[in-house]
């Protein structure tokens, strides 16, 4: 009987220190992966409309610039094996989109 109790106890300990680690670790990995992938989606959404920049309203342009700034903060915090390359490449690409929207905004505000 004592042995069974010991087994339960050891099982309980193992679950707490190892099993939970797996579960928590697993969910953290999923969150990490989602965050990693989802910033690219946001980048694509911001930059996919540069050809329409001149037709956008002032509010739309301001929104895209704001989103670009927020995304830049996320890019700065990237971690992982490709982080340095991605930071460098996407910072430059995002900057180019932002500048185009910013230019279009300036043009519109001057005109209006």
């Amino acid at each position, binding site marked *: 009987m004592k042995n069974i109790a010991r087994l339960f106890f050891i099982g309980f300990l193992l679950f707490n220190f190892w099993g939970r680690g797996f579960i928590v670790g697993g969910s953290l990995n999923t969150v990490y992966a989602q965050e990693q992938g989802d910033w690219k989606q946001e980048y694509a959404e911001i930059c996919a409309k540069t*050809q329409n920049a001149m037709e956008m309203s002032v509010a739309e342009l301001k929104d895209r610039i704001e989103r670009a700034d927020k995304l830049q903060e996320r890019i700065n915090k990237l971690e992982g094996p490709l982080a340095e390359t991605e930071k460098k490449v996407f910072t430059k690409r995002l900057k180019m989109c932002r*500048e185009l929207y910013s*230019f279009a905004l300036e043009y519109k505000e001057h005109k209006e």
Partner: protein
Amino acid sequence: MNATCDRCHSLGKNVTRKYDFREFVKGWPKERLGNGVDWEKAEEQELIMPYDYIEGVSIKRAKLVVQDDFKIVSKVKGMPNIIFSHEKHTVWNGCELCHPEIFVGIKKGLTQYSMVSIYEGKFCGVCHNNVAFPLLDCQRCHLQEVK
């Protein structure tokens, strides 16, 4: 698309070639400079069909409504004018690659530049000589017939 980045980005890597380049491009449209192939014509003739989308790198965007080709008048007498094609320059790129950082504004003529500045790596020279055909290939830009 399978990632075969190493085939081009092969610096410092031991990449086994699948075929002999010279043999592969034999009979293709010729060009004086670079690796001897006129890639633009090769594409026109459908000898090559370059990917225009790489997962995780490219952006899916609506097709650009391109302006008509326009003329950039040469400053030197007798030098053929440049015919600039937005269509050719936007096959792979968004507007943001050139505007407003390299070419400011949306009005033609707002950005002033010369061949000297281009040779210094500014304006057209940002890409031409680096990733696009070299500046010494004059007639590929200066292509309007002189009357």
